[in-house]
């Protein structure tokens, strides 16, 4: 199994895909082989699915549950020690802190991971490359504990950067009443903002529910 991944990795680096993805994904070569078969099927999926680290080799969903993480750590690292020597020339990606938060923006709630982006309603008055602090944090989860907010986790903040202010894909609003000669054909593009999450802070002092294991 390890030898097959070795040959796969060498052909993979030869295709030159590595420089494109190196700042998005981890150096785990198993995750890169995953990218190879995921990308033709889901090209339009937002990049947060591809940037998750560490990525399990056997499931395509970015599962992030504390029960799986200890099991996963042994498997990818044992098979990765050999391919990692081939991939050494790639720039070392900083280890993402394993934490998530539930944040409320524009009366909608999102589950947020550092390093990924989300699309939200258009934030008026936010320009590109603005640093934003989201204060309505409803829940924070780390590997060992969960901080449940009632309703908000006190002093917690999610830092984000505004990347782009664009429009959603067009939706055709077609209204028609039969036999009454009434039809209206309208196109609609809702404005949105793409923000990239950079970090989650400020939760250390709140009451937490910790894992016993």
């Amino acid at each position: 199994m390890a030898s097959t991944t070795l040959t796969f990795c060498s052909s993979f680096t030869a295709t030159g895909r590595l420089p494109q993805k190196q700042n998005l994904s981890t150096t785990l070569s198993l995750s890169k082989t995953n990218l190879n078969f995921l990308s033709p099927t889901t090209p339009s999926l937002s990049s947060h699915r591809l940037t998750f680290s560490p990525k399990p080799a056997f499931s395509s969903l970015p599962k992030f549950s504390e029960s799986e993480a200890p099991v996963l750590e042994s498997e990818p690292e044992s098979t990765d020690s050999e391919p990692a020597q081939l991939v050494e020339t790639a720039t070392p990606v900083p280890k993402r802190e394993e934490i998530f938060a539930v944040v409320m923006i524009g009366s909608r709630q999102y589950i947020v991971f550092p390093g990924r982006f989300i699309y939200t309603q258009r934030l008026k008055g936010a320009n590109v490359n603005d640093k934003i602090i989201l204060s309505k944090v409803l829940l924070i989860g780390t590997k060992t504990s969960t901080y449940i907010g009632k309703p908000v986790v006190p002093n917690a903040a999610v830092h984000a950067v505004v990347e782009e202010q664009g429009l959603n894909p067009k939706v055709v609003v077609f209204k028609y009443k039969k036999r009454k000669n009434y039809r209206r054909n309208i196109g609609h593009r809702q404005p949105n903002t793409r923000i990239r999450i950079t970090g989650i802070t400020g939760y250390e002092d709140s009451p937490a529910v910790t894992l016993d294991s």
Partner: protein
Amino acid sequence: MNKDKIFKLAKGFRGRAKNCIRIARERVEKALQYSYRDRRNKKRDMRSLWIERINAGTRLHGVNYGNFMHGLMKENIQLNRKVLSELSMHEPYSFKALVDTSRNAFPGNKKAVLPPKKEDLSIVL
């Protein structure tokens, strides 16, 4: 010009509806009406799907959906059903913490409502 737009929207339709303009126009109009209606239905369907998933997730811990939500409302936890269903699928430990919080606030289930026990084939064979 308009015909091309109709045919582009009629891709994947059955029979003459993707090739002949008179039939395609009718079918495309119907498709657009359905999409208008279903953009509203999708919100209802998704909410019931989330509720099913939360129900399944809490019953693994012996609590049913009604008592779970009542406990969350008592504790003033304002997570919505979409996020709760995602947590029940992907973050089991966080979800268990939520279920425990809700059970402390409202211990409604005296008898634990576990999913029905599945018997395997060894009984029949």
